[in-house]
């Protein structure tokens, strides 16, 4: 009986196994990398309706974060300031600047400015700002160097493992409460000294303040 299949087909099963294996590895690796918040979320920088610069307001002028995000110490939600808050200064400063037209209009009419949301927790995560900022976790840990951003972008993945990294070892990030909004603050300019200080002081804070390194589901999911 003549051969129906050519001889190279003898190797076909092996090729399928190897090819399939490579493909599966590739897909897994691809999903592993491309589907994670580290890739998908970091760097997200939408255009905002008003070209507000944190670098100018906070970095250069030194306005404290809490002047605008005034409820961050009281609520789970760190509020976006109302337009009337902007007008506290801007009815004196840059009074007629065309870039602020929308702000002036909003403050006058009461219609909100539609800011584009950048940082967002899924609905099944109950993150609370107040408990973090009151207990020595700085804005910079999750939001990055906002004080240097002309336009805000997503600086950290804010994935569950990102949260857990800190929750497993709060001593590595905790700082004196009065330095929470000082995003440039370090224990020391010398990295080695800073690391050593962080370790020593961090552990002291964790102990003295009875910081629980909560890793239970109930801490964030309800």
């Amino acid at each position, binding site marked *: 009986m003549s051969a129906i299949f050519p001889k190279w087909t003898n190797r076909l099963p092996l090729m399928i196994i190897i090819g399939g294996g490579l493909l599966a590895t590739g897909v897994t690796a691809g999903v592993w990398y491309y589907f994670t918040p580290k890739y998908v979320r970091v760097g997200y920088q*939408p255009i905002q309706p008003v070209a507000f610069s944190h670098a100018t307001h906070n970095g250069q002028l030194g306005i404290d974060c809490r002047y605008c995000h005034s409820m961050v110490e009281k609520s789970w939600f760190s509020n976006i300031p109302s337009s*009337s808050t902007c007008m506290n200064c801007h009815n004196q400063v840059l009074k007629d600047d065309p870039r602020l037209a929308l702000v002036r209009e909003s403050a006058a009419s*009461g219609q909100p*400015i*539609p800011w584009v949301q950048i940082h967002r927790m899924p*609905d099944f995560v109950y993150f609370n700002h107040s408990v973090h900022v009151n207990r020595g976790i700085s804005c910079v840990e999750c939001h990055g160097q906002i004080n240097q951003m002309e336009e805000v972008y997503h600086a950290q993945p804010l994935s569950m493992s990102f949260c857990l990294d800190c929750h497993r070892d709060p001593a590595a990030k905790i700082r004196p409460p009065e330095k929470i909004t000082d995003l440039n603050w370090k224990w020391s300019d010398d990295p080695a000294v800073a690391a050593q200080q962080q370790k020593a002081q961090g552990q002291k804070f964790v102990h003295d*303040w009875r910081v629980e390194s909560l890793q239970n*589901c*109930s801490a964030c999911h309800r």
Partner: protein
Amino acid sequence: MKTLSTTAALTGNSRREATNPAAATGRHYWRGLDELAATPEFRQFLEREFPEGASEMTDEVSRRHFVKIMSASFLLAGVGLAGSGCRKPEDKIMPFGKAAENYVHGTSQYFATAMPTRGGAIPLLAKSYEGRPVKLEGNPLFPGGNGGTDRYAQASILNLYDPDRATRFARRDAGGVLRATSRQAALDALAELARQFAANQGEGVALLAERTHSPSRRRLHQLIAETLPKARWFLHDAIDAEVHQRAATKAFGKSVKPAFHFDKARAILSLDCDFIGAEEDSHNNIRRFAQGRRIGKPTDTMSRLYAVESLFTLTGASADHRLRVPASSVIQVAQSIALELGVPAAAKAPIVTEWITECAKDLKASGSAALVVAGNRQPLAVHLLAHAINNALGSVGNTVQLLEAPGRISGDLPELADALNTGRVETLAIIGANPFHCAPADLNWAAAQRKAKTVIRLGHSEDETAAHCDWHFPLAHYLESWGDARTSDGTLVAIQPLIAPLFGGLTDLEFLARLCGLAETNPIRIVRETFAALIGSASDATWNKFLHDGFAPTTAAKTVSATLDSSAAVEALASATPANPGKTSLEVVLYRDAKLDDGRHANNGWLQEFPDPITKIVWDNAVLVSRKTARELDVVNGDVVEISLGSAKIEGPIWTQPGMADYSLGLALGYGRTAAGRVGSGVGFNAYPLLTTKSGHIATGATVRKTRRKYTIACTQDHWSMEGRAIVREGNLDQFAKHPDFAERMNAPEAPVEAPMYPNPFDEAKKTALHQWGMSIDLSACVGCGTCVLACQSENNIPIVGKDQVKRGREMHWMRIDRYYASNPAKRQFGQTFRKEESQQFDEWIDDVQAVNQPMLCQHCEAAPCENVCPVNATVHDHEGLNVMVYNRCVGTRYCSNNCPYKVRRFNYLDYHKRPLSELKGPFYASPITHRTGGEWDLLRWWKDQDSGMRADDEWDLIRMIKNPEVTVRMRGVMEKCTYCVQRIEGAKIAQKVKAGASGDVVVPDGTIQTACQQACPAGAIVFGNVADPESRVSKLKQQQRDYSVLEFLATKPRTTYLARVRNPNPAMPDYTAWPLSFGEFERENGEVNFGSRHGHEPAAEKGGH
């Protein structure tokens, strides 16, 4: 006060507003904008892909089909990824343009308000989130109150978001149909009517309203009497709660109403008075009753309750001695007891039994600490007799306080019907009432109402009455209203709006003021004027304090002393003829339903699905009969019978109720609505046709005819007996004094301890924790009212599932009240475990039973059986002892539920939140491949609109507003259960940590956290707290000797423990047993409990324990 419009301004992340790529602000994807992203299909995919409601597998698909569709979605996902970069939808954050004062976004605000009731008002504290009320709690500041409420108050918030509410101003057109009209046109019509009325001093004007205790309403009434002297007022309530005041006024010759102090009473006799359940103000009664029954030490004393009743009620379940007699014979029992006590009672045929003699002796012995109460469906004569007995015992002024009460200034419904029939009414204004459903049948209301030329109505929904009105105005819910009320003790309480009227509804005050052409029509000013007049101060400070606290202190009605006119009772009794119901002349007892009230809550899904506290029936009423009656009538559960009474005939299904009086038919009012809305129309049967003005709520002479039809009733607890197991443990007071450890003695023999193969990781975790949570439930205090169940439903976003699903055992309540019956063990056969549940109705033991109630919720076992079997670690322990349920891990194997010995886990079989009830039928959704809806192939329907089969927009928009934002709304395929209100625990911990700041003061003080059930409980039976703190309340309760765990022999180490129930029977009574019947059943099954030695359980073990 925030309104809807400001709410919408806060965040723009709703499902419907999600993305708009054409927004003027432009969008800027960090990987470049792809044209594909702008196509509607892709946008739809984006919207649906993001796990917002995590609802996506809920479209019309079967399980198999779901896989197909999901693979298609993955393909599309691939396309999306390759082409555009997979981005989440762009959401907007909408901050205020102008900052609102004192508003912190993300935190809740609390406002004091009150829910008006027939008997007064329930002071409330309403929680408001983003400007919408989401939860109601009792006002803890209210003098004497404990923050407890009742079922209706807990569920009333759902009426605010009822999609079938009246949403429009409507006018009847020439064809007789209500058509929407503008608000202005409707108000103009009111003004026109007002002008007509003014011209003829209100000649031919009749106002029909429901009873309220609003001083402002009363003031308007008087103002209207001045401006329109010929206008007439009428009040109607299908449930006559005013009889107490009428009786007291008649008996004491002054305008007074009685206040019953169950806390001060030592012996209470209830003459068909369900003061724990169906009477008005039950939450206060429960609080006082529980106070009088609370025991801690074996030496404590408690009150004793005798109940004489025909229906088995919650009061009967709490009673130490219960006498079942037909409701029409209660008067004879009352007369006999009066005779025993030497009170003139004109008894024609006194019943002399040991029960009555001994009960009377006990009342006499208690003297001024005795209390006799008569139920509101009983005739006036029984009430007068009860007052006479109380007076003779000296309890008037002690357990019965007489409060000054304003007299009646309105007519009643029969008078109105008479006025209508004689053509004296030209314009009838109906405020709130629904006479088409509730009016007594002999008034022939439909014909009478038609005699009025114009009928104008202000109503909560366009119901049966609305269809016959010329004008229909939407009534504002009390959470949308300015108003005031007096509670049962006369204290003035504020009703302030939590939200602007959702549909522009009017309050009764504004409606009246406009209709009658008063100068002031703004309800807040009307209320403030009344307040200023009553308090004598118009200052802002007083007013603001009134609104803040919710009540005006020291405005309670004055107690007055009065002498009894003993002839009143004798006179009334002279005409009373004892009825002797029998097989051919049955008695009909029409009672206020524990869920729907008089029918007003028929469209409230929470209440419809709340199991009746005694029968445990949901979504239905039934003809309740005793076993003997059922046998004689040859009917079984589910048989549809026709009840004839005079010329009226109604049909309903039979339900055998243990402990019912023979020849008595119990019929709940309020069902069988024809125009209640999507939830309540066509549920149950209407019993109002049997209600007449002459016979009232108790009628005799009914006959029953069996039809050949059967009807299925959904009941959440179909097994009635504990079968001798120690689930609910009970003792009698005298035995408790001797054997304070009786509950512990009922523990099963301990299994030999084997070292577990693996250490419990929780044992390590709890060493470092700041708190350990636990709960204690006092079964002596619990009366089984079920307020906790509804509070839990409201707090935890628990969906309703509909009758069909409940029948399949899929109810979602995280907390249920188990009700068991116990009987004299000598009377029953045990060891018949495998008998069908249906055959219980034929057993003789159900005739005279004791009932026990037990709230059952997740026990938060330290060694939780559910956790071991979860393949995905979706249910785990946290370090503070909570058995937590992680919804986003759950894959729905339901192993945990199978392995839970307490059966407290609930599974979302279908998408209960997003589907309307009409879609929740059968085990699965109908397959879209074979099924058609409205002649259209379902798959095609789905292809066109992926929201088909979901709740209609109007329904969804309202229903989502009631959701507690702090609790996840669970999707289909996810297990859920009681979390001990983890959101409240975490909220309190966070608040404490915020307060602590840079300090170690992070332990939450005892009493800070109240679970929703604990908060709502009027009896204070539930206590939650930190069991690691020996000084906390819960720890102290757990140290009591009555403390026990359910199914302790499974070594699950539950964190929820119970305090055994203690009864207080009278040893002289004929039905006295040394131990409660359930204890007798236990001993019969497990052998005698040995109180001799510390190891008393061992002999029991030999006789074969569990």
